[in-house]
């Protein structure tokens, strides 16, 4: 006689609904990682999410937490307003690369520099997903997009911005890491980094930031598997994985 034992289930912080994301898109994986952390730290009842513009705007459709929607790029400012009212709540933003590294550059830099007690999940797939695959500030040199049809020319378009390194240099940040979700091993590491980022906020230790290298198979024109291979072959060499700042470790 055997007893069945449930060893894997949907996180409580994630609603039981099908997602709208494209096949192979890793927003679903990243959503799950965040939800698992919210569950494991028992934060669901006191978490407030800030949704940004782009594919991640539907945050409130998936996360079973209170959510406020921010204009394009402004999530760190909205989150600042939220956190200053609710000092004891856990506030996170979830932003794409166009949102955070282009139109919202000012907001992210200054929220980080103020040391706002926020956690920012930054999904970097080197393109504008929802608007149809245009060039992002993180698009790699020579990357072809709908607005860089001949490939990104750094001489005229500039260089891909390494946001994690940029923010790690600010006094106000406490934890800054870059992870990827292209392999099971990297997904496990990503989960650990996201957990650490939330723990920093729970302890009131300042601004935490996790950049998640992610795929956009639809706009890259790739299968999900070859998109994962691109992350390893092209993205990770430019956007190095690792922890760029950990104030606690640094003592």
């Amino acid at each position, binding site marked *: 006689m055997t007893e069945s034992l449930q060893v894997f289930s949907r996180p409580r912080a994630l609603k039981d609904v099908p997602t709208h994301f494209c096949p192979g898109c890793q927003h679903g994986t990243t959503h799950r990682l965040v939800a698992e952390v919210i569950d494991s730290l028992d934060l669901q009842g006191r978490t407030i999410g800030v949704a940004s513009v782009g594919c991640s705007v539907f945050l409130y459709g998936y996360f079973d937490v209170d959510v*406020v929607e921010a204009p394009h790029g402004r999530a760190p400012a*909205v989150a*600042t307003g939220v956190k200053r009212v609710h000092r004891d709540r856990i506030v996170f933003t979830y932003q794409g690369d166009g949102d955070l590294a282009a139109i919202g550059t000012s907001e992210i830099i200054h929220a980080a520099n103020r040391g706002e007690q926020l956690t920012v999940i930054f999904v970097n797939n080197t393109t504008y997903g929802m608007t149809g695959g245009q060039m992002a500030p993180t698009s790699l040199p020579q990357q072809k997009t709908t607005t860089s049809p001949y490939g990104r020319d750094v001489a005229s378009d500039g260089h891909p911005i390494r946001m994690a390194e940029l923010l790690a240099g600010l006094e106000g940040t406490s934890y800054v890491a870059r992870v990827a979700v292209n392999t099971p091993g990297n997904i496990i590491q990503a989960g650990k980094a996201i957990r650490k980022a939330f723990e920093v906020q729970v302890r009131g230790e300042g601004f935490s930031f996790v950049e998640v290298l992610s795929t956009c198979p639809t706009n890259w024109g790739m299968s999900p598997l070859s998109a994962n291979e691109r992350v390893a072959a092209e993205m990770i060499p430019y956007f190095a994985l690792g922890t760029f700042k950990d104030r606690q470790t640094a003592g």
Partner: protein
Amino acid sequence: MNQRLFVKGNEAVAMGAIEAGCRYYFGYPITPQSDIPEYMSRELPRREGQFIQAESEIASINMLLGASACGARAMTSSSSPGISLKQEGLSYMAGSELPGLIVNICRSGPGLGGIDASQADYFQAVKGGGHGGYHLIVLAPHSVQEMYDLTMLAFDLSDRYRIPAMLLGDSVVGQMKEALLPHSYVRPDDLPTKDWAVSGKGERKEQNIVKSLYLGDGELEAHNWRLHGKYQALREREVRFESVCLEDADLIVTAFGSAARIAKTAIRMAREKGLKVGLIRPITLFPFPEKVFRQATASTRRVLCIELNNGQMVEDVRLSVSRDAEVFFYGRPPGAGSLPTPEELCEQISRYCGEGS
């Protein structure tokens, strides 16, 4: 509290906001309104409030959006070019049905313009300003006391209707000093609970969502009809205005804010000359006192609209008056460097009143 004070209009706004329970201020310095953030930076930390000097006007309006989404009474203030930057956030707040106070102590434009008094932001304030077709509640104080009182009213109306409110002043009412009689109003703890606000789900069964995105079939149209219904309710219930000597008037002068102060002196001078002139001063610019104009112009057929711009409110006046009323305009475009004098306005009143007739 019942002590007469001699304060600046801008300070009266900050004092009124604190007395109305506002404990969160987000802003960015710009002349001629910087007294407001300066006052708040001094007073809010003493009241367990929060003051943030944001990195930009865009960030500050979005901090306001976040604080307002939490149900707090919160505000920002700026002046014309800064208000332009806030329009994105204002549209989102309108779409998300969020209350909050936005103070515009106008300066002259367009562009960088100058810092002299102007009412050239009327269109921007009452016609939406940002994208998408919406209205703000717009209040136009003409004295230091009103800067105080209307700030309180703005918070109340904004909360009641879940529509952002704008206090539209200019550098005259912002910078001048006058007597103010402060009075206690409400304690933050006594404000009604906002059960729609985000606060963390806690034991609540359903999550709270504050958003402006409606993609389902018919959802956005229904949302916009709901907003429209609130604008109609404002038009029915919340019109504020001041009227003077309308009963026997041959001419109605209309002006708002600081222009109305000069107009009042001019009207007094004209009355001393025997001219039958009255005044309608809209206090709410949205909702505009349409019915008041319609009723008043059923008997008085001539209206002179005076503004510190080259003609903006006059359009709403023309839309409001009875069909056969004549509407005239006298104004100064921004940047004239000086305000019209009472004598100048009295001359205009004489012209349209038919002096001696």
